[in-house]
């Protein structure tokens, strides 16, 4: 029997899963509080003891782990024009599994400098200008970042003619700098993979130990990677398949957590008949992360967004306010037992979270009347033909009616121009296995894929 122990160090819980790779089955689960402030191995050992108590004597073969503990991989990204290099830098940071706290454009101001210090990021991603284009803003922002207080890495991925000079400026300010290829070397063309790799390597080589994970890192058989990167890789595998096992084709996944809502789309997103693409063409594998949409730590921010849209009017406003307070003082709370009267409210929040983060991920089409007739212009990805939506994260999988929540991710006549999936099948990751399967896929993609296909159930 060959057993893999897959661990996800989360901000609150250390979640563990044991997989028997010979049988291709998940055989045990366990979780314990993450103890990163003191000694992370404590929580890890507690979780492992939980697995051992279920399996009895066993000899685990391989240990793999990912982490979003201690604030996750916090990244601030910057570029020149919001819809061009700033967007490209945000996409690059998100695809590497970063929690992109803020994206800046144009010249950074003193106020923004202070904001960056307050965010206390792990990495600042500096871009701007296509190759041969504007380099003034890259150099100016390098000057500003060099003077910004904080112990963070800087990745320079902007106009290559300014990159080395930017590096010198930053190093002069005592920053540790990595220079990468431009995130947008020619106009409208994305080149985010080199930056993605650089962020991943930084995480593995430096940030893991800075976050107090080095002790457990030594106990693993492969490097610890950011949890969203593991989820991203699981989604990509589930869509594309691997040798000997077919994938599901085009899909989207929603991971709704306490602090963020992560959205993944694995689809080419090209226009249906005849629409023109305006703006940059987005990648097949896209991740967005919404830091102001979450079910506990970000619930107040989510509430503000919902109010702007005029939502939650069906509920007693006193109850809504109470639930906001309860979640604030106790982020681990579930709408069960004494709190069960808030279950409907919590579900409604979750539905809005999905709806709002979908709106920020999918593309839009606009109908334009011209002298030569009607034409369509598309911005972002057309996801109308996506066949599967996968729901993950506690607030979705534990809800009484997850379908109602996840339906907010599909096309609705209420929002005609948003290119959401039209008739998707909705699957539920009820074991919360996405991250663990992303880890397992690093050694056994075929088995990880089969487990996902078997355990993700369609909800009618």
């Amino acid at each position, binding site marked *: 029997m060959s057993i893999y122990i897959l661990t996800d160090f989360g901000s609150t819980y250390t979640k563990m899963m044991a997989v028997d790779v010979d049988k291709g089955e998940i055989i045990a689960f366990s979780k314990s509080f993450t103890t990163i402030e003191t000694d992370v191995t404590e929580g890890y050992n507690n979780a492992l003891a939980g697995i051992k108590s279920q399996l009895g004597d066993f000899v685990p073969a391989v240990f793999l782990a990912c982490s979003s503990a201690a604030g996750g991989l916090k990244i601030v990204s910057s570029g*020149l*024009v919001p*819809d*061009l*290099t700033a967007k490209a830098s945000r996409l690059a940071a998100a695809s590497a599994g970063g929690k992109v706290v803020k994206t800046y454009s144009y010249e950074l101001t003193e106020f923004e400098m202070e904001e960056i210090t307050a965010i206390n990021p792990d990495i600042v991603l500096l871009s*701007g*200008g*296509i*190759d*041969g*284009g*504007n*380099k*003034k803003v890259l150099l100016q922002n390098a000057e500003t970042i060099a003077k910004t207080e904080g112990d963070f890495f800087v990745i320079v991925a902007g106009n*290559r*003619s300014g990159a080395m000079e930017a590096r010198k400026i930053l190093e002069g300010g005592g920053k540790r700098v990595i220079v990468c290829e431009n995130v*947008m070397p*020619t*106009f409208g063309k994305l080149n985010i993979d080199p930056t993605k790799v650089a962020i991943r390597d930084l995480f593995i080589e430096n940030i893991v130990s800075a976050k107090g994970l080095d002790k457990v890192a030594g106990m693993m058989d492969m490097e610890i990677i950011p949890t969203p990167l593991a989820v991203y890789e699981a989604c990509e595998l589930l869509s594309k398949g691997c040798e000997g096992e077919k994938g599901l084709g085009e899909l989207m996944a929603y991971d709704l957590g306490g602090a963020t809502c992560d959205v993944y789309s694995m689809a080419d997103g090209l226009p249906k008949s005849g629409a*023109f693409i*305006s*703006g940059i063409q987005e990648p097949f594998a896209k991740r967005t992360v919404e830091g102001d949409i979450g079910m506990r730590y970000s619930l107040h921010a989510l509430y503000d967004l919902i109010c702007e849209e005029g939502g939650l009017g069906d509920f007693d406003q006193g109850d809504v306010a109470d639930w906001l307070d309860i979640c604030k003082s106790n982020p681990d709370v579930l709408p069960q037992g004494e709190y069960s009267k808030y279950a409907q409210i919590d579900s409604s929040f979750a539905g809005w979270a999905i709806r709002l983060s979908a709106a920020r991920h999918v593309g839009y089409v606009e109908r*334009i*009347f*011209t*002298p*030569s007739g009607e*034409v369509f*212009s598309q911005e972002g990805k057309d996801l109308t033909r996506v066949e599967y939506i996968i729901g993950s994260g506690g607030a979705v999988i534990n809800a009484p009616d997850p379908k109602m929540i996840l339906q907010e991710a599909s096309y609705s006549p209420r929002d005609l121009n948003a290119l959401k999936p039209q008739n998707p099948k909705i699957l539920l990751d009820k074991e919360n296995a996405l991250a663990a399967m992303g880890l397992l896929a690093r050694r056994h993609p075929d088995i990880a894929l089969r487990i996902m296909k078997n355990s993700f159930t369609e909800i009618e």
Partner: protein
Amino acid sequence: MEGQDKVTLVIGVIGADVHAVGNKILNYTFTKAGFNVVNLGVMVSQTEFVEAAVEADADVIMVSSLYGHGEIDVKGLREKCDEAGLNNILLYVGGNIVVGKQNFEEVEKRFLAMGINRAYPPGTDPQTAIKHLAEDLKK
């Protein structure tokens, strides 16, 4: 490195205009003439022209218009450039830029008054613009 010492042009067909052939010819001709060309294709908004010029640090924006609505489509472009910090960028406009057959001298006057540096009537040889570029960029 390529692109460093070359003159950068941003070209495209403005507004709701889908005429793609002339745009391809201009792209070919200007690239062959040694310019660094950022081609935005057809149906390009003013904002897209300006944003591309900012990222590319362009020297010139060359606007094509074939469907007769060039005047209203181009109106305000100079002001947008000023706002975006593209202070001395050259703006050229060419094609069937107004409706019907009008006296081109009058048309040109109106375009120059909008802050456009050069306006061209239908059938202008791209070499004319190339010649003007050499003159205007020296200034």
